[in-house]
């Protein structure tokens, strides 16, 4: 257990909070202060992350970022020895210091389970939930021969391995067989060759001794409770906690300067995505809503969801906007990207343009064409990451469900996705391409096109990527985290209202009536229409929709529904393009519709 976990904190005595996030390239620092009895995020600074030569000490980057915050805030935060001053006295120091990290590429894991759809899926969920990138899943039924599996384990250099399999008291043979495959592979850890590969066993507890026998002293084996003790139940928390502990004690401790950082922090350092998941869970729990969050980065896209209290997180390891932009294009294909582009572009030049962005990932679009194209790529990256998330966030597989007569014609089997766009209340976007889009309409449009929200969905964005900081803060001071999240982190863009149902060219989709303090409108939406109504932040409007047959706002086909819509910096968007969203196949017609959406949402106004 690291020293950070032993510190006792009194939430009432905390007035100044300093938080950092050590990213793979940039270390971000924010200051949270109690102003008039409320916690507010006040200043922000950043500096390059310094895990590599010549500094080779992560705390150097932290001190640089914190110094910048201190200068902006007029508060001395670093003492003469280069350490963070605590507790706060007047305009010197802070009360607590917390941090997250994904420096060094974050936590990379391999998982192994007996059956891909059952124990291996549970192990993967535990690893992803802890903030890891899952490099590969080894299981008895993955169609690879044993020697191929061993070869794969040898090729990869994960930070740790999670092994699961079998229900408690069930069969032991298969999970021991997996252990026997992993042990001789002698997996090499990523950082250096001096520490032992951590392996977490979270399978059939009765097979623990046999699994221990399979491994020798070349690995560090930790046994925790089974991730799937019975078929109908998952128990991911013990494995998740063990991953966090091992991440701190073994992986981070081997990165330069981390021991010092760990000793500075007043709460355990968490992997960045794990922290983002925490804050989303907290907000969904407090407000009693279903929420979906996305963080689109340069290398990966993380999707987080909380539906009916169940949290899921996926990392799409090679879907991103800079390092992985080429992979987005390879996965989505160029025609799929170009369906979001309303300007004429040369496909060959675009392909080279994508590769040039991949090799020089820090560049930004200077021209309107380049911006339009990058935002089109972003839509596809988000869409693909969301598909992966929906496939992963399912009810437990392998569990028999009781079916009634009413289910006779339903083809649904066990393991359905629990992500339901119709039930989604809040969609939060984060990451450069969403957070730094020149206007908010573009952010809203990218999220709507990629996620296709149905019914009524509130859209928001993370203002300055503070969700990781708040995720850790939620562990030590939930009230402060929630206040800052609501007041300074989230920027409400508005509400999107869209029915489920197929696009039928020229047909009326639904009628609407909007009543509010500043907005009173009514009319009809034809299939393919998008309409934007101004509805300011903190404003609400009552929206009544009457769909035609075949269209559903959540109450059934053709049923009238009334919503209370929240305004925002963009406003209220009515979307009659159909769900699933399909663009017309005919090119000229498609271009006409695309241009009408661009114009209606004022996506790319001329810059004077």
């Amino acid at each position, binding site marked *: 257990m690291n020293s950070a976990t032993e510190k006792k904190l009194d939430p009432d005595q905390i007035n100044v909070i300093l938080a950092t996030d050590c990213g*793979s390239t940039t270390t971000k620092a924010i200051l949270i202060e109690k102003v008039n009895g409320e916690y507010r995020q006040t200043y922000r600074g950043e500096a390059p992350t310094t895990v590599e030569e010549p500094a080779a000490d992560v705390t150097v980057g932290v001190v640089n970022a914190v110094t910048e915050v201190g200068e902006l805030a007029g508060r001395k935060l670093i003492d003469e020895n280069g350490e963070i001053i605590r507790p706060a006295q007047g305009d010197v120091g802070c009360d607590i210091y917390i941090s997250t990290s994904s420096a060094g590429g974050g936590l990379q894991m391999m998982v192994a389970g007996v059956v891909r759809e059952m124990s291996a899926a549970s192990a993967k969920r535990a690893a992803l939930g802890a903030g890891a990138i899952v490099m590969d899943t080894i299981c008895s039924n993955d169609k690879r021969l044993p020697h191929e599996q061993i070869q794969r384990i040898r090729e990869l250099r994960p930070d740790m391995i999670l092994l699961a399999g079998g229900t408690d008291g069930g069969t032991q043979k298969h999970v021991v067989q997996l252990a026997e495959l992993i042990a001789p592979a002698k997996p090499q850890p990523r950082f250096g060759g001096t520490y032992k590969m951590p392996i977490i066993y979270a399978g059939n507890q009765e097979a623990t001794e046999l699994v221990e026998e399979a491994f020798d002293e070349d690995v560090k084996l930790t046994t925790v409770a089974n991730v799937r003790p019975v078929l109908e139940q998952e128990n991911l928390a013990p494995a998740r906690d063990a991953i966090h502990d091992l991440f701190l004690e073994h992986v981070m401790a081997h990165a330069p300067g981390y021991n010092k950082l760990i000793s500075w922090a007043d709460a355990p350092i968490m992997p960045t995505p794990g922290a983002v998941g925490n804050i989303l869970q907290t907000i969904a729990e407090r407000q009693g809503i279903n929420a979906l969050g996305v963080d689109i980065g340069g290398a990966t896209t993380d999707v987080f969801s909380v539906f009916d209290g169940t949290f899921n997180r996926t990392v799409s390891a090679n879907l991103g906007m800079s390092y992985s932009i080429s992979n987005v*294009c390879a996965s989505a294909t160029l025609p799929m990207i170009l369906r979001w582009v309303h300007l004429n572009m040369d496909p060959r*030049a675009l392909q080279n343009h994508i590769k*040039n962005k991949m090799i*020089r990932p820090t560049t*930004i679009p*200077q021209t309107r064409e380049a*911006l339009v194209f990058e935002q089109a790529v972003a839509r596809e990256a988000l869409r693909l990451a969301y598909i992966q998330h929906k496939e992963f966030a399912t009810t437990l597989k392998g569990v028999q469900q009781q079916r009634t007569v009413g289910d006779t014609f339903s083809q649904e089997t066990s393991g359905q996705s629990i992500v339901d766009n119709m039930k989604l209340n809040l969609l939060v976007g984060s990451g450069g391409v969403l957070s730094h889009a020149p206007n908010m309409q573009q952010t809203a449009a990218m999220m709507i096109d990629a996620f296709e929200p149905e019914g009524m969905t509130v859209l928001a964005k993370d203002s300055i990527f503070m969700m990781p900081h708040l995720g850790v803060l939620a562990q030590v001071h939930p009230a402060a985290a929630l206040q800052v999240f609501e007041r300074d982190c989230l920027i409400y863009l508005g509400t999107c209202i869209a029915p489920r149902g197929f696009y039928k060219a020229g047909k009326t989709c639904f009628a609407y009536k909007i009543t509010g303090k500043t907005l009173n409108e009514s009319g009809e939406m034809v299939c393919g229409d998008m309409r934007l109504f101004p509805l300011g932040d903190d404003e609400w409007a009552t929206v009544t929709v009457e769909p035609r047959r075949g269209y559903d706002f959540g109450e059934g086909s053709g049923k009238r529904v009334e919503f209370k819509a929240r305004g925002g910096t963009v406003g209220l968007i009515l979307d009659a393009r159909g769900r699933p969203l399909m663009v017309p196949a005919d090119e000229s017609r498609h271009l006409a519709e695309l241009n009408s959406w661009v114009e209606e949402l004022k996506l790319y106004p001329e810059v004077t």
Partner: protein
Amino acid sequence: MTQAYSPGLQVRRQTLHSSRRILPIPGDVLVKVGEQVSAQQIVAQTFMPGDVTPINVANQISVAPSEVPGCMLFKEGDEVQVGDLLARSKGIFGFFKSETKAKTAGTIESISHVTGQVILRGAPLPIQVRAYQAGVVKEVIPEQGVVIESEVTFLQGILGIGGEAYGTIQFACQTKDQPLTEELLDESIKGKVVIGGARMTGTAVKRGIELGAAAIVSGGIDDEDLKEILGYDLGVAVTGSEHLGTTLIITEGFGDIAMAERTFNLLKEREGAEAAVNGTTQIRAGVLRPEIVIPMDESMTSDSSAEDVKATSGLLETGVPVRIIRDPYFGLLGEVGEMPTELRTLESGSQSRVLEVILDSGEKVIVPRANVELIEG
């Protein structure tokens, strides 16, 4: 405010360069401090545990897993050869015995009474590290490897395919903006580091591979050509393990783009010299660029007056040479003019810190600071 520009590619006529040559797992270092080594000399070696072959003996001789240890004719640690009888069942009253033979040679690592599985480990796999850079052994890291140092001409490319290669520098193109096409290549390029000018065409690369070129270096490549050469679309710029037979390095980027004049001229100056090249690229944190390392020889003087561009201090400031790395001026070279402090609105609508670049043609253009890289001496 963080510095948004990209550190540039290094193009140095003469520099004291060191290469760290480390084994992936502990082993033996074969050279001593102060020793002169050649580029292809092996300086350290070790052995990886051999490949393993799992054998499900219980299934093969139809016995319960718990009976397998009793049926084995070898014990853990024993060596077996192909065809050796591994295990024999006890049969019924001594009759109907089943047997299984080893299909691969190796040492028995484990015999499981739970799964009935036997793990056979093959012979250790040798791993050798070459010096790569001809020079003097500056440091020996016990059991790990060495640091080799020497005065070299050092050039970085932007992206490479394939790993380390060695050969004499030979030019195929006469100017920096001449595309490298297949007609320019003949049998003389076998084992050579071939230098082109602008874009290397797909057919030229295929011809170069057929003729056995050690490496091909040119300004650019078309994405479509690269896809065809590799047989897949490069998703992320993490390369080095491809096995084309020829290492490829592009110095500028994708598309029809000429090699930077300074790079071309410097390579021209070293024509005929022995070079070591490495295409390994990793554009992530801890960036790795492909490189060309050419040790200095007696004909080269230590006079640095031939440096045609002043070395930068690593900071973006007025007067330093830069390359624009994004549309609409992609590939153009110039020097930094004014650096306004306030944010400017770009044509895209984004707000950004910008700078003025005075192009070689004399024209002045405004670009985001993130869209230039330093030309580093």
